[in-house]
């Protein structure tokens, strides 16, 4: 026990004192905050933000021109007439464009009724940004086609004034709202990054010690399990520290920036999610950190290590690929399977928890299965810390990995 604690203390102090760790701890939330602030300011229609206006000015097309080659437009309604000027033909409108009377123009071709296309001419092209400011040509055409049938016109403009009577009792999340997807997705990504980050620390630590041959000396004084446990717990605590610091930093920076982050009732995450988050983080981390330790024991140098670790990370990425399924159909069979299978469970279960309420027995079952796999993996990886693996410069292949784990070669 004492030796494990020794390893633990040493590992933690080394990392906490390294410049790169402190740098990443502070830099990442700072940079993300700056990016979010800048992007958010640029995309909102915020009149007071002068810097935003300077960096990415809102495209202001004050007046549009219109050439109607189809003959459908009899009159332009008054609300639109300040922003839309009609011209007789294309040459007239091009002259107006050059003299600056208009900044862009529409052309309704004479085959409009058959094809439904309206051409929008802009000198700077800008198809995506330019779309936001267009005068509603569709409305204009409808008003002109149905000029004498006001009731029909009103019905076409608003065919569906919907009132919903929902039978289910769960508070409903509006499927249109971006948060329905973004909130669980954000939780998933965060969780994935935390587990991955902490597990990579493990890989780095072991590979470095193997490379500068310190590992062999350490193993004369303690058993592999003591070494591994000490490292796993130490790096887990560091990972947890990183997580907590970043979450708190994110929270406080958001408050400081003055944005109110009032989530509607259906989106409020229950406090229990934090408890389960910690539980699944610890279990998921234990599984992946020990797998990474196994890789670290087998690979000859750091470069091969990062390539090999990619193979092991694949089960962790699978829930990310199925994230929309997990969010929108959290009670389907595939979702339940993904959240119980120990390798995919840490991330998948968190996604489901952020999207809906998960029955308690599933949570306990998942935790139990993960705990079991963690113990099994740690035992088999400890067996890898044997001289023959640590001293060989053998290239890492999957075959070697499986043979070593099963005890042969």
């Amino acid at each position, binding site marked *: 026990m004492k030796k494990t604690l020794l390893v633990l203390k040493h590992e933690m102090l080394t990392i906490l004192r390294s410049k790169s760790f402190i740098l990443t701890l502070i830099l990442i939330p700072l940079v993300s905050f700056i990016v979010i602030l800048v992007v958010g300011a*640029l995309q909102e229609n915020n009149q007071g933000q002068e810097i935003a206006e300077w960096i990415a000015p809102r495209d202001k097309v004050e007046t549009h021109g219109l050439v109607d080659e189809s003959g459908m437009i009899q009159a332009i309604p008054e609300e639109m007439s300040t922003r839309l000027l009609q011209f007789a033909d294309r040459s007239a409108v091009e002259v107006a464009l050059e003299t600056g009377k208009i900044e862009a123009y529409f052309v309704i071709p004479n085959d409009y009724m058959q094809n439904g296309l309206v051409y929008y001419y802009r*000198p700077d*092209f800008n198809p995506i*940004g330019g779309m936001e400011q267009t005068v509603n040509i569709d409305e204009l055409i409808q008003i002109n*086609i149905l000029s004498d049938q006001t009731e029909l016109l009103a019905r076409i403009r608003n065919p569906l004034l919907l009132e919903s*009577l929902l039978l289910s009792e769960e508070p409903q*999340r509006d499927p249109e709202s971006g948060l329905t997807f973004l909130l669980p997705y954000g939780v998933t990504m965060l969780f994935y990054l935390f587990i991955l980050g902490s597990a990579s620390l493990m890989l780095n630590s072991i590979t470095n010690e193997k490379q500068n041959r310190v590992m062999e000396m350490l193993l004369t004084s303690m058993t592999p399990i003591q070494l591994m446990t000490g490292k796993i717990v130490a790096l887990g605590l560091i990972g947890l520290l990183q997580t907590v610091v970043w979450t708190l930093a994110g929270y406080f920076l958001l408050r400081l920036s003055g944005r109110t982050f009032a989530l509607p009732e259906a989106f409020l995450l229950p406090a229990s999610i934090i408890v389960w988050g910690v539980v699944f983080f610890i279990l998921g981390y234990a599984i992946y950190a020990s797998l990474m330790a196994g890789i670290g024991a087998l690979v000859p140098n750091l470069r091969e290590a990062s*390539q090999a670790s990619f193979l092991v990370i694949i089960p962790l990425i699978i829930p990310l690929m199925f994230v929309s399924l997990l969010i929108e159909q959290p009670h389907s069979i595939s979702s339940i399977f993904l959240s119980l299978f120990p390798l995919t469970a840490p991330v998948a279960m968190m996604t489901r928890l952020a999207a809906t309420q998960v029955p308690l027995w599933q949570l306990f079952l998942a935790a139990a299965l993960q705990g079991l796999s963690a113990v099994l993996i740690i035992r088999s990886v400890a067996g890898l810390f044997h001289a023959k693996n640590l001293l060989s410069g053998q290239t890492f292949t999957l075959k070697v990995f499986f043979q070593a784990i099963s005890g042969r070669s």
Partner: protein
Amino acid sequence: MKKFWLVCKHEYLRHVLRKRFIMALLSVPLTMAVIIGVGVLAAFVSMDFRPIGFVDQSGLFSNPQPLPRTSRGWFPIVAQSQFASEESARQALADKEIQGIFIIAPDYWETGKVTLVAETLLDSSIYRDFEEFLILNFLASKPETIRERLASGAEIVVRSTGTERQLDSSNFFTFLVPISSGLLFMLAINTSGGYLLQAVVEEKENRTMEIVLTSVSTNQLMIGKIIGNLSVGLSQLGIWLLATIVGVIFAIRAFPEFSNFRLDPTFLWVLLVTFLPAFVMVSALMAMVGATTTESREAQQISALFTIPIGVPFWFMGVIMTNPNGPLAIGFSLFPLTAPVTLPLRAILTNLPFWQIGLSVALLTLFAAGALWLASRAFQLGLLRYGKKLSLRELFQKA
């Protein structure tokens, strides 16, 4: 002259002839195919295709025509099925035969009121399809062209004055091309950059460096290594781009709605003219880092300093796409590290003034030349230095 070519060939073959290279080459298109396949699969599994029931209490829809289309691409459209009364509809809902009921109120014509009864909120496409269904049916008495036109509305095709460019629903995804070529560029640079970081490590470790340097000058070695490793990255990029083009041609044949896809030639030569100097610049910087640092971890951290800025435009992608002529976009197009990703994207989205292209390329070439000079200094000073790190200041001092 022949010597640097020898080094170049050796470096290139050393990497390309390994199994790992072929695997990495194939893994990218494979991963893309898997991700797209899984995404489509997940979308399919999560959608509910049961019909939606409706009850007409207004009397306007006694003989309704179904929607003309039954599917949208690969996904079938949810059908509308009529029920005579609210009770029979609710019974079907309870039996889970339908997803929900739209009840058209008796005063629908004046107010447009419709009530939805369902378990949970439905997919948004169901509402849109029902709107179209309603419009098509209460216009039943009008001639067919007017019906269709009023129901589906006008489609706006954006064109550019002066040049022959157009964006409509058929070539809407043209801007995916610069985004994906930017991503491929980042991947290729990371690969060849990674190789360059380790370029001289092997020779230094087994002391063959001294022997090599009796036959080759440091400059010849440096240029050979840089061009050799760079060509590895370029080959990867070339093969991926070729695969993408083949995929696009296949997609155009398979989905005739994309047949209007045309790639602006300006985009292609902007791509060429920014990627090449950028590749050379980053490769030279990586070679310099490889020759100066002693520990691989440190080398990776310093190289991140160069590779991360290349990806920064992706964080601001939304802003660049909606404001391709704003100062942010222009700034990114001129700064050498962010230019290769930003400039081709802007070439598709707007009419690029020639001075911007010229200035950006000039800056890139200048920085590439500077990086090459730094790398050559690093090689001159660092190749026979073991264990001690070469500091930046020493690079600038007179030899």
